[in-house]
């Protein structure tokens, strides 16, 4: 093929023309396409409830197509009642322990409480959760429930992992009715393949 001088000339012309046209054409196609995002939400604590719901609700507000696959502890984020989500400072050295009340100097103290103490004080997690909820409120940060509602309103596709539902002995009735689909990895992966953004949280 390449031996034919006419073809070589033609190929060269096509290549040069494509170099000129293609970037603009690709940009056009990209601009026309509705962006898509898929998230795998695997954590079921108060703090880790935020990233998937913030990103999903914001992407929906930007007009993106969003699907979130809730698996393992992430299933807790789909429960009808979210009030028992907790945060644990135990073994979590990244978590600042600051008081949400009192004078400014007091609020700035980072209480460095050893794991050994946290582990033996009954109700430590509940206390930390109460303080965190107060901080969330003080700072004008949304409640998890509010962000989840924003996801539902924005048309975010909430998907439950059927295997984990069985594993943990849940029933579909434990979860909000907006969860339209329960499936497995084989259903989720093709969605993630077609998405522009895919995150594991």
């Amino acid at each position: 093929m390449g031996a034919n001088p006419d073809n070589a000339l033609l190929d060269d012309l096509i290549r040069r023309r494509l170099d000129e046209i293609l970037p603009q054409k690709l940009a056009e196609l990209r601009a026309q396409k509705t962006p898509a995002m898929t998230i795998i939400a695997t954590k079921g604590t108060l703090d880790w409830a935020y990233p998937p719901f913030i990103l999903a609700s914001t992407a929906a507000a930007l007009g993106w197509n969003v699907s979130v696959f809730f698996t393992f502890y992430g299933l807790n984020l789909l429960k009808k009642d979210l009030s028992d989500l907790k945060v644990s400072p135990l073994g979590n050295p990244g978590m600042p322990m600051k008081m949400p009340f009192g004078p400014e100097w007091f609020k700035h103290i980072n209480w460095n409480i050893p794991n050994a103490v946290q582990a033996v004080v009954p109700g430590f997690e509940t206390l930390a959760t109460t303080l965190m909820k107060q901080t969330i409120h003080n700072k004008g940060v949304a409640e998890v429930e509010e962000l989840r509602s924003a996801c539902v309103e924005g048309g975010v596709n909430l998907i439950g992992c059927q295997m984990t539902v069985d594993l943990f002995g849940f029933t579909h009735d434990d979860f909000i009715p907006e969860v339209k689909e329960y499936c497995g990895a084989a259903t989720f992966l093709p969605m993630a393949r077609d998405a522009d953004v895919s995150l594991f949280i």
Partner: protein
Amino acid sequence: MSAAVLDAKGLNCPLPILKAKKALQGVAPGELLEVYATDPGAVKDFEAFCRQTGNELMASTQEANVFKFVIKRIK
């Protein structure tokens, strides 16, 4: 032309954007929405929001610690 007003003061990311998106749905194309916010992250976020959603950010100003955004609904 009177603009719709959204008070998002005291709210933190991503609430100002989520509320603005909702408020824009009640604004006719070509009309304006004024948003007031105190979250410093909102300045960049509203630029990105308008660029992504194809609406026009007519103004982004600051008075004391309050940011004001004027958004024209295009589509």
